[in-house]
């Protein structure tokens, strides 16, 4: 599927990031329910693909999550446009001192779309369901978030994780659910805001066979239920209405919603996989909005007064990776020469439609542990050549430079262009570039992961608002893609991850970032703000750094009169 935009918001302590400050208005009210409803209406939203299934516990791709977020709700949610936690289906919660028991006070008077009451029983049914997943539901392409947050299952299949954080769930009274863990985990509370842990109607799960399946002659479990395809029943502001694959998916307003009711009558999601086609459909009025706008189109959209662009806060990093196993990259001087030879500012300024900033390190500035005083490498081709000579090499030095041929990621909307611009500046800096390419997945990622790529373009979209999710995933253990074994960096990152004192932890990550940028395992070059586009009369859509966005606050027909 490739296009995952994960949104695992683990909260290791304060996740009150500086994100609120980072654009997206930061208004007090979030504009929700602002004024009277302007007559409902239908909004057509262009998506890049059909959802896989409408069952949050079994998907991790952005297009499934986008729809599920409208139909289902979690115990804990995020304040719109931020990564701050706020109560949702749970009104309040308490954690026992040993960290093993989470007690949730549930919201009263909430009903599922099928009329069933939402209560502690329902919550525990859902947790038990996830824990009891079997067969293909245990694939990490399905229940990825459960496995990342809670670990294993009751009866693990071959290859599934053995241990689980999950012990049990008890409904102590109608509106109190107690979650028991086998060991403490600082990330679980925040993780409960993930769509993967949204609560579904137990009756619908049962009636439409969410977990049913048949075991075929090969002994392989094949799901057969229709819960996730035809009968997804949650508590959210919208109800599922119909779904014709490849054509449209329709959700309708839930008039019995417990909170502020949606103004839109219907939202239709229409899959259009080509980006240019989505833009054209927006221009011709066939859709009213779409996600993943490419930077070069931002100008076109902004120049059209019938259209508007919305920004999502930057939560990613694009970088040029080095594999130190491949000579001469084992030499720090050569790595520095490449760093000085990449004209990063030019690429970011010209190719990111004003939505990128030049990266100094491997995490965006909003994340704790960002260090302001790391070594920086301004474009200086002469210095590159000098460094190469110092390393005992004579320019031009030949390097193999990889780029993916067919993908568009927020951090590199057109990898080919980045590649060509970087190649030109590296040539100026005394390198000879051997171009290498492959389709993104599985070919390109495979080549990089297996350490076959010498110098390569890659990046990362954060799924945790935590430094561990950036530098930790890259540099905490030896990886073939990087091909180095630097004990100092590994140790520093391990120490930082284990540290519970928040200030000390921040300091350790800052030190790690400095070490990393001196050691130069790769060159980060961009943090970018992904963009969404809408017709000008669409109001009230609030972009979120982790893409948890609701259509319930959206209105049609309002025109440009916002403060």
């Amino acid at each position, binding site marked *: 599927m490739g296009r995952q935009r994960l949104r695992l918001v683990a909260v290791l302590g304060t996740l009150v990031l500086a994100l609120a400050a980072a654009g997206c208005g930061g208004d007090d009210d979030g504009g929700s329910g602002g004024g009277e409803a302007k007559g409902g209406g239908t909004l057509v939203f262009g998506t890049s693909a059909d959802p896989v299934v409408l069952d949050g516990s079994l998907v991790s791709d952005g297009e499934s999550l986008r729809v599920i977020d409208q139909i289902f709700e979690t115990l804990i949610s995020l304040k719109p446009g931020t990564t701050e936690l706020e109560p949702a289906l749970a009104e309040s919660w308490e954690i026992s001192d040993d960290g093993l028991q989470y007690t949730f006070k549930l919201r009263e008077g909430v009903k599922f779309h099928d009329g069933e009451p939402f209560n502690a029983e329902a919550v525990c049914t859902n947790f038990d369901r996830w824990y009891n997943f079997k067969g293909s539901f245990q694939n990490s392409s399905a229940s990825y978030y459960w496995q990342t947050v809670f670990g294993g299952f009751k009866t693990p299949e071959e290859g599934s994780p053995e241990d689980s954080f999950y012990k049990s769930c008890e409904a102590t009274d109608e509106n109190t659910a107690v979650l028991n863990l086998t060991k403490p985990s600082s990330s679980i509370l925040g993780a409960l805001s993930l769509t993967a842990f949204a609560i579904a109607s137990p009756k619908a799960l049962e009636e439409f066979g969410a977990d049913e399946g048949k075991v075929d002659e090969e002994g392989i479990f094949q799901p057969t239920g229709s819960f996730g395809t035809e009968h997804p029943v949650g508590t959210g502001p919208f109800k599922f209405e119909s779904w014709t694959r490849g054509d449209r998916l329709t959700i309708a307003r839930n008039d019995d919603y417990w909170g502020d009711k949606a103004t839109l009558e219907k939202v239709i999601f229409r899959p259009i996989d*080509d*980006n*240019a*086609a989505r*833009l054209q459909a927006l221009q011709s009025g066939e859709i009213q909005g779409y996600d993943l706008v*490419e930077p*070069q*189109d931002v*100008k*076109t959209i902004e120049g059209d007064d019938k259209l508007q662009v919305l920004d999502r806060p930057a939560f990613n990093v694009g970088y040029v990776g080095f594999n130190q196993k491949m000579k001469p990259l084992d030499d720090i001087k050569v790595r520095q020469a490449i760093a000085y030879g990449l004209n990063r500012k*030019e*690429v970011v*300024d*010209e*190719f990111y439609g004003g939505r990128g900033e030049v990266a100094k390190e491997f995490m965006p500035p909003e994340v704790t542990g960002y260090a302001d005083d790391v070594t920086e490498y301004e474009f200086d081709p002469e210095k590159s050549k000098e460094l190469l000579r110092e390393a005992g090499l004579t320019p031009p030095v030949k390097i193999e430079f990889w*780029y993916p*041929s*067919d993908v568009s990621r927020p951090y590199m909307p*057109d990898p*080919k*262009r980045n*590649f*060509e*611009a970087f*190649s*030109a500046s590296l040539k100026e800096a005394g390198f000879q570039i051997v*171009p*290498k*390419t*492959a*389709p993104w997945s599985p*070919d390109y990622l495979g080549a990089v992961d297996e350490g076959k790529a010498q110098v390569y373009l890659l990046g990362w979209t954060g799924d945790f608002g935590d430094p561990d999710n950036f530098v930790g995933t890259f540099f905490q253990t030896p990886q073939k893609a990087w091909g180095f074994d630097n004990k100092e960096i590994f140790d520093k990152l391990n120490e930082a991850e284990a540290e519970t004192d928040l200030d000390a932890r921040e300091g350790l990550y800052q030190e790690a970032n400095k070490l990393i940028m001196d050691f130069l395992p790769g060159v980060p070059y961009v943090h970018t703000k992904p963009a969404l586009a809408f017709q000008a009369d669409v109001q009230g859509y609030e972009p979120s750094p982790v893409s948890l966005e609701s259509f319930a606050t959206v209105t049609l027909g309002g025109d440009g009169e916002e403060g």
Partner: protein
Amino acid sequence: MSVAELEARAVELEAPSGLWRDAWRRLRGNPGAIVGFVLVGLFVLVALLAPVLAPYDPREQLGLSNAFDGPSTSHLLGLDGLARDELSRILYGARFSLLVGIVSVAVGLSIGLLLGAVAGYLGGFVDSLIMRAMDVMLSIPGFLMAIGIVALLGPGLFEIMVAVGVTQIPIFARLLRGSVLAQRENDFVLAARSVGVPRRTILAAHILPNAISPVIVQGTLALATAIIDVAGLGFLGLGPQDPSTPEWGTMLADVNRYFQTGPHLAIAPGVAIVLSVLGFNLIGDGLREALDPKLRGR
């Protein structure tokens, strides 16, 4: 086909030089073919003289802030997305497109002819085996097969040419087999055989030269198809490893994405492809008509 026509054809095939002279005469009288020759001539000329004609280095980036600039007096076709002179890239592109066409067709033609000749001449089990294999290949839409082969080999200029070439194998194999079968029973072949000329010599000296005219027609048309198919692969993101290669198909690859940012970038390589492909098609069409005995004397 009437008996008289069959005879006429046989007579012509026995006298190839006359056939060709005649064909050439009729080709000259066909304005379509003339236009075709002019277009292809220009195409080849540009390919050969690209370094002389091109005002700039086709790979040199002239300041990224100028990217997508429209046509101007210093850059007649404007600048591309990486601020390279589009005109120079179009001129150099003729080389790659010609190369792509020729190599692809050479792959398809050589393997196809070999298989077709062997099948047609040996007949029997070998024939069925080869032809059934060709049937299998033909039952997959050609372009889809090309995509499949590139997926297997990985992208790259050479890989694409091979992929497109392979899809043309069955066409040539069938064509040549048909011709060889028709020739095999011809009087002069039977005569040669009866005086004990070895099979291989018969095939090489008598059958092939006479079976070749439809192959030439098909080859010309295949050149056109190859250039188009390579462009199509480029459009799907399966282009050469080095994206700065000024190949027309690759230059069109981003046509959809950047159509609204720099429409001039879509028009130039598109028109270049259409004109060169049209040239080959016109020649192929003219040749077909000129070499077709049924249309003679009209």
